[in-house]
């Protein structure tokens, strides 16, 4: 799976407690902790001391880590659910088609190539109109296609489509 928006590294405090609780249920838990320290021959005392400080550290650490995770969490932009145009306003317009070509060159071609490449061949796409618009703006889960909503306007995507349709015919 492609992880473009991976979950924060340390999601929250309760998850840690839950995981810890689950692990402590597993018998023999002291063996587990000794293994965690990668010192199977260490005396039990180190295991017990490690356990005490591990519990303290994990409990208290969650605060700064929560803050760190927050500072990196991706921006949750609101997705455009309603489009300005019901159909391509630029279809067949020569000047726009050239603009669409230049947009395709700058934004799409590096992956989609002349006839597909790392991304699918857009000149053979089965997506039309709003399906295409949505795929571009929101990205495609499970692929390397990113969300373009902060980089391209709705008009620009329609222009790219106008170019693709013109080039196809």
């Amino acid at each position: 799976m492609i992880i473009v928006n991976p979950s924060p590294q340390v999601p929250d405090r309760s998850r840690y407690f839950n995981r810890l609780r689950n692990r402590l249920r597993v018998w023999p838990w002291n063996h587990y902790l000794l293994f965690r320290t990668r010192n199977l021959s260490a005396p039990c005392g180190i295991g017990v001391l490690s356990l005490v400080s591990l519990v303290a550290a994990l409990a208290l650490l969650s605060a700064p880590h929560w803050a760190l995770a927050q500072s990196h969490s991706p921006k949750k932009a609101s997705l455009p659910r309603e489009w300005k145009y019901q159909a391509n306003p630029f279809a067949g317009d020569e000047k726009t088609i050239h603009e669409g070509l230049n947009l395709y060159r700058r934004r799409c071609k590096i992956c989609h190539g002349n006839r597909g490449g790392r991304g699918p061949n857009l000149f053979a796409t089965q997506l039309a109109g709003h399906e295409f618009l949505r795929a571009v703006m929101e990205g495609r889960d499970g692929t390397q296609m990113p969300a373009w909503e902060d980089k391209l306007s709705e008009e620009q995507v329609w222009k790219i489509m106008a170019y693709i349709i013109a080039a196809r015919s």
Partner: protein
Amino acid sequence: MDQNNSRKLRRSAFMATLIFLGMTTLAAARPVSSDDLMNAAGNTSDWLNHGRTYDMQRFSPLTQINPCNVNNLRPIWSFAVGNLDGLEATPLVHDGIMYITSAYAHVFALDARNGRKLWHYTPDVPKDLGTVLCCGPVNRGVALRGNLVYVTPLDARLVALNKDTGQVVWEKKIDDWKAGYTTTAAPLVIRDHVIVGVAGGEYGIRGHIKSYNAKSGDLEWTTYTIPAPGEPGNDTWPGDTWKTGGAATWNTGTYDMASNQLYWGTGNGAPWVAELRKGDNLWIAALLSLNPDTGKINWGFQYTPNDAWDYDGNMPPILADITYEGKKIKAAMQSNRNGFFYVLNRENGEFIYAEPTIEGINWTHGIDPKTGRPDVNQAMVPKADGKTVKPIIPGLEGGTNWFGFAYNPCLGYAIIPTNQWAMSMTGYKPEDITYEPGQIYMGMDFQMYRQGETIGHLKAFDVQNRKWVWDIASPLPFFAGVLTTKSGLVFTGDQLGFIFAADVKSGKMLWRYQTGSGINASPITYALDGKQYIAILSGLGGDPSFYFQNPKGGTLFVFGLDSLDSGAAAAGNWEVEHIEGALPNLD
């Protein structure tokens, strides 16, 4: 939570962490010292540097696996990285722990004996980062020093992780990803410096190399690969073109301990249409020698002045002492995308010779035997006129691209993956080529072409006698690094999914194993408890995924001569993450 409480809590957390770490480190892997990195040549149990040793030879003195028994190699364990994007990393091994990266710079620490996952670092990356990635979300590995593991997540950051826990210790912003700066290379540690480069040559960045303090992460120096006005070489750029001229530094560097020189390769010029930046354009498509303590450039050698074909020179050079025409030479060797294998004097950048690695090179009439400067074939230079130039040989992928070749000092052979293919290029008209931060700034279309049944050729080259020795052909391009051993073996992988071993003297194929996906990473070897292992990441992606769609995969394979004892293989806790509430205990 009010601010005071939060601060107290963090302070307590800090103290608790210190106590905890203080105890656990008693038992954890040793820190990696600067001496460990410098003396890696004598350490056969680990693989500590990107190319094993600072000279980047990818040569191991291990001999347990040899031409007589290599046919008995078998997979000992494997590890699925959990996604299907390309894998390009060289694993590092230290004190029984293996550190690998996958796409999006995830880092995994694994028990090198059995593959048990010790920790996994997931970098947060912006959701639209893919809008500035020319060549996939790849990463080429980590570097080690002290108790830290260094990695560069794609959005131009340097992150230091605790090597025992994977927790972030510090992180630094290298540059602005929104302007097209990204990071894919393994960092390079020299003493207390962590040195990093940037990608983005297709987005009109101004390339640079930066050094950070290994402990604190403080920025020590920045050296731009394109000189500003007033600096030597700026006159090779017309007007303001130097600001957006490319010369990215997207692969790691090589270090010469004796002369304290750091060598770093640079990438294509931007835009690709060279007539828009008339002049040599220092230092695009070049090898730079720098002082790692100050970042000062000692000298540079430009493989492809005024590069018009995307012939990046980013593969790090291999350093070796050779005898050529009766003279002892401290050489730096590099196999270039422009189709030539270069031998330079690594002390001063003097050109020794260049040898074509493929047939039919036509972007140049030849290389000046004294200076190394190409005599460019103007008929093969695409212009800003909308006309297609075809066929240009080699295609922009090379020749040899970024992946490390290997040098076997016992024989004096360089074992080089080369690719025989061609391309067309069509420059846009000037009015269609404008710079916008974070947008493609190539100004050109290209198309790669197959020239025959085979593209990939793994070749052995006798550097001292300047002779090709053998050739293993493949229908698809070679995009993996190479490993060679004192026992007389060479290992690499192909795009069909095979990792294979050949006799380094004869090129005779001795063993192969199908990994299930194309191989774009570099094999390593290490020894634990008296047993030698071979490890490689398998996963189609990066540039090869432009051209074909073989099955994707994402798996690390480790091979050895004996299977693991079944008890040892299953021992320990395997870090299975339980889904809360999904499988409760029966009360």
